[in-house]
Structure formats: structure tokens, C-alpha cells
């Protein structure tokens, strides 16, 4: 049985081992619904180490992968990696469009209601495509917003 709401899904993603692994060890930030950039990602994660910083954006959707893909593509303006996470029960139509995810370099994952994450397409790291929004994002996550 799938998720009842995107909110429930977002909570499950944040509690998942994938996010725990992503944010540990070392300093990292997790935020929900970061506004004021280019779209509003459900979750952003910034992982830092002494050498570099990698930023991730996640768009969670129960069924509408098309809208999620467009939204996730916007987030690439300010993060290094952007993902769509679908309800695992409804990911099949998105899997048929793997080429679109690959050519736009948007990651595709799904999550079931046990919190298990399934990886379908891994994007590679890219510089955010909008220098202005990248700079704004970095200021927002590191200076102005409280950590979760």
C-alpha cells in the first residue's frame, strides 16, 4: 500500500537510511521546503567536508512524475544533484521514461512505506546552472536558516 500524502512520504524519506547515510559522518544540513529560489524543493541536503560541499534537492511525488521532473530540473539551478522520489507503488510510468531522467541528469528513486529506498537513476555531480541562485542558496542554507 502506498503513501496517503506527500507529507507522509517526505517524512519517510527524511527518516530513511539513505538520508542518514548521506548526512553522516560530517557536518550536513537538511531542510524542508526551501523557498525563495527557483521552485520549492521538498527536501534539500547539504553535505560538507573539509574539501568540498555537495548539495542535493529532492522532489517527492505520489504519482505525477512529469511535474516532479520539471520541478527537479529547476532545482539544478542551485544544487549539484537533484532527484525525483516517487511512491514505489507508482514509479512504473516514470521508469519507462528513464531516458528523460538521464538526459536531464535528474536522479530517480522511489520509496515504499517501510522506508526502503530504490535507486533507478543516479545523476552525476554538476555545478548549479545559475551562479546567482547558487550563491543565494549557499547564503540561505549556511547563514539564515536554522538547521533541522
Amino acid at each position, binding site marked *: 500500500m502506498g503513501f496517503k500524502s506527500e507529507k507522509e512520504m517526505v517524512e519517510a524519506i527524511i527518516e530513511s537510511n539513505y538520508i542518514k547515510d548521506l548526512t553522516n559522518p560530517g557536518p550536513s544540513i537538511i531542510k524542508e521546503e526551501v523557498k*525563495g529560489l*527557483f521552485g520549492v524543493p521538498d527536501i534539500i541536503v547539504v553535505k560538507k567536508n573539509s574539501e568540498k560541499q555537495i548539495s542535493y534537492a529532492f522532489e517527492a511525488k505520489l504519482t505525477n512524475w512529469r*511535474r516532479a*521532473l*520539471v520541478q*527537479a*530540473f*529547476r532545482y539544478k*539551478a542551485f544544487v549539484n544533484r537533484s532527484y525525483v522520489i516517487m511512491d514505489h507503488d507508482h514509479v512504473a510510468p516514470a521508469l519507462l521514461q528513464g531516458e*528523460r531522467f538521464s*538526459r*536531464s*541528469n*535528474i536522479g530517480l528513486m522511489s520509496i515504499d512505506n517501510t522506508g526502503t529506498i530504490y535507486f533507478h537513476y543516479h545523476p552525476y555531480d554538476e555545478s548549479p*546552472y*545559475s*551562479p*546567482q*541562485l547558487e550563491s543565494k542558496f549557499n547564503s540561505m542554507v549556511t547563514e539564515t536558516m536554522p538547521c533541522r
Partner: protein
Amino acid sequence: MKFEIYHQLGHNGTWNIDSIKNENTGEGIIISPRSMNKKNTEKIEESLRKKAIFDPLLLNPHQVNTKMATYDFYPNDVMPYGFETKQFSQYSSIIANKCIKFQDQNDFRYFVIPTRYYNDMPPVSTLTRILNEHFIDPFLTAIENLGSHKGVIIQLILNSNMIKNDEYASDLLNWITGIEGIDGVYLITELSPRDKQIGDVDFLYSLLNFVNALSQNELEVILGYLNTEALLLSIANPSIITIGSYENTRNFNSNNFIYDNEKTGQKGPTPRLYIPRLLDWIEHPYIDLMNKTDPDYIRSAAHNEYLDQVLKPGYKWHFTKPEPYKHFFIEGYKQLREISIVEDNERYCEICNIIDSATREYSQLKEAGFELGVAGSYLPKWSTAAHLFAKKQGWRK
């Protein structure tokens, strides 16, 4: 008929005026008291003022903003207790005389007779009775009393239901074409709700027919508050088409004329740049991406000096900065000017080519990994409206 291109002035109208003067991006301006006070209107360089169209802006007679209050013809100034519909007829001649006197003193291109805005569909007989009584009769009398032979334009603001209803539109056309002493119509239409681009085929097709009918009746047609659909509407043979800077000059929204609700502190829109080959304004992060992935594309698609400025490293995009708008004035004007030199069937064919080419460009961007969502989704609808209109004109089987 070759059409002229006018700038619909709004906030920061000096950007438009500078662009016309320095970059030759238009034949004239439409002045709105909402964004230009009386003193500044009078200070406009004579050569430009004489070609200008002055919109008296009485569409919402309950409301004046601070700039409008500098003029002496608004009901709040003339009527002792402010505007009241029932009392208006008693004061309409005073308002008409003052407004026409101002228009005459400034020697604008035409006399413009203002109108009211209705968001519903009053019976045509009621609507025309009110417009005749409140505006057309007193203004025509005021013009006649002056003894001027300058052209007279009536303003008309129609909502989409009015335009889309054949019988209603036909009755309006009968009324307009029967008004003695006018030379044309300054037509503004409101489609509500609407997206940034118009994707309502019925509305576009009906509007094309309405404009064409006016033109066929040898009336000049000035189309105000147009976004890039200006290109499509040009096949209906208007006399003047408008371009503007901020979105509120390219998309008529009656809510923008309610001044006691002037909003402050609202987040501005994401700045955009007009890409003529895509027939749309594209959000700036995508412009950055285009520049990053294929700098030759963006330079070939929309190159002028303002493109160089916005693509400079460190350029801070903001919707209040002039460069994207000045860029549009050049590119939008160029595109419309090229279309204006061909006519009728040839113009229709050329516009279809532009729409088809834009559709192909969106497909190519998608192939290259750009996920732009609904961008370009209105284009097939524009084609449909153009084809339906062409069929009616006998340009297409």
C-alpha cells in the same frame, strides 16, 4: 495593412521612451495616467507627444491613484461626493470637457473617448446605453465644440465572455460601426483566469474575428496590453499593436486598477528574458543554462547589446532592472516589424512558420535535456486559432 508598434507605458515609462528614441523600437507610446502624472505627461518631448495616444483611464471611476489625482477630469475631482453611478450623467459633460481639453492642449495623435470596465456581461443594450450616456455622447459633443478634425478613438474593454459569445460580439460590432464620428477603437481584452501565455483557442479565434470585423469596417484598431500574442493577432489586420515592459502592461488585469489595494512587500516575479525564436519570455536560470551549455544558441537566438549585459558574469537578475525589458523592446519590435511588412495570407503563412519553428526549438531543447514543463504548450493552440481564421478568410482550404 502595415501596422505600427506602440509602447504601452507603465511604471518606468522612461525605459520605453529612451528605447524608442535611442534604439528606434517603436512608432509611439500609449500614456496611462496611472503611471505618469500630468506634469510628466506634459513634459514629454513634443514630437513623441504628438504621436502619442492618451488613455484617460476611467475604466474604474471609483478609483484614482496619486498620479491620476494630478489630472483634473476624474470624478473624484469633479463630483462633490466622489463617483456615484446615478449622479454621473449630470457630470459627464464636465468630465468630458476637461478631459478633451487636456487631450487637445497636449496635441495627442487622437482624441480618446474612455470606457468603463465590466467583469460580467450586462445586456448589450444596457452596456451601450451607459457608454453612450456617460462617455461617447458627452465626449463627442466636447470634441465637436472644439471644432477639431483630429481622429477620434473609442476605448473598449471587453472580457473574454463578451468576445467569445458570437451574438454579444456581433451586437457590439453593430453598435460600434453605427457610432457616427469615430475613426477607430482602442481595444483591450481581459482573459481571466489566464496563464502568462494565452492558450484559449476560442478566445483567440473570436478576438481575431472581432478585430478583423472592425478593420473591415474601415476603423482603425489599436490593440492594448498585448504579450507575444501580438504577433498572432496581427493577422487580423490591426492598425497599432503594443509592446510593454512589466507584465502588467502586457496582460490586462482589472485588479491592477484597484488602487486602495495597492500591494506592498510582495515577492516579485522571477526575471525573464524574451527569446524571439521561442516566442516567449524565459526564466533567467534557464537563460544561464542555455548560455552555459550552448552560448552560440542564446547569442544567435536573441542577440543585442542588452543580452551581453545580462550574460556578463555577476549580473544580478531582478525584475525591476531595465536590461531584460530593453532587450525585449529591440527583439520584440524587430520581430513585429518584420511581420508588418507582409500582409494577409503572406503574413499568416509567415506567422505559422514562426510558430512551427518555435515548436521545433522547444522539442530540440527537450532532446537536449531541458525540462521546461509547459513552456511552449500554447503554440499548437495559436496555430489552431490562426488556421481557423485563415480558413474563414479563404487563405486555407
